[in-house]
């Protein structure tokens, strides 16, 4: 089957990916809000990053669940930001641990979340790639 239109990423196995994204969005955002509400001054950088990562996960969840071209672009961007984020923050949290006195979702490459934050963006990008629009002349893969 060939199609010029992208298939929805959010069906079949893709639905599982979207669900796990939703879980991570909930976990990161709720945790960041709790941290900011109770003890923002202790680790402003870590808690701000927590909130930022939570918002990116929410955006990625919504974008993956929709199939229009615009939303797919948003998904590509959001998931790329996640991958860069988990790699950068993971490395920084090991290099300068004093700036990260408390955990964020991305600290230690997401070890506190079973490395799901490290694996998930890769899975998300693969999913977007496999459900991309294919031009008929190139045939189906």
């Amino acid at each position, binding site marked *: 089957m060939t199609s010029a239109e992208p298939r929805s990423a959010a069906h079949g196995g893709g639905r599982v990916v979207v*669900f796990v994204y939703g879980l991570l969005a909930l976990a990161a955002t709720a945790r960041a809000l709790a941290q900011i509400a109770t003890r923002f001054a202790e680790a402003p950088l870590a808690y701000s990053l927590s909130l930022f990562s939570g918002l990116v996960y929410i955006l990625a969840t919504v974008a993956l669940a929709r199939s229009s071209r615009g939303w797919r672009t948003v998904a590509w961007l959001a998931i790329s930001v996640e991958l860069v984020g988990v790699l950068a923050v993971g490395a920084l949290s090991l290099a300068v641990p004093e700036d990260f006195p408390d955990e964020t979702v991305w600290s230690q490459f997401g070890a506190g979340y079973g490395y799901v934050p490290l694996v998930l963006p890769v899975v998300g990008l693969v999913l977007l790639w496999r459900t991309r629009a294919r031009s008929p002349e190139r045939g189906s893969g």
Partner: protein
Amino acid sequence: MLVLTWIVVALCLALGAWAAVRALRDQAVILRQLFAAGAVEAVLLVQLLVLGVLQARGAQVDDGVTLWGYAISMLLILPAAAVVSFLERTRWSSVVLLIAALTTAFLQYRVLVLWSA
């Protein structure tokens, strides 16, 4: 508190195992599983109530905000899986239910740690 935690964990593991079996057999989530998930939700609500009463009576918790964050977040996970099981009538809904059940069980553990801290 402890009893309720173990009840939820046991129910979640049983529900997760049920979902895993159906996923392996290439079957989608069925209504009876959603009733089971509803039973877990009922226990979670009782737990929320007990948590509130114990705290109102002066039980001390180190990090109450995070504890309540977990307790409330936990309520959302199985219903979200239920929504997916209506949208996705394939084995993948069973996989989602499995993940939801295991996550709920894990959050119970986190609540227990925070509570006994």
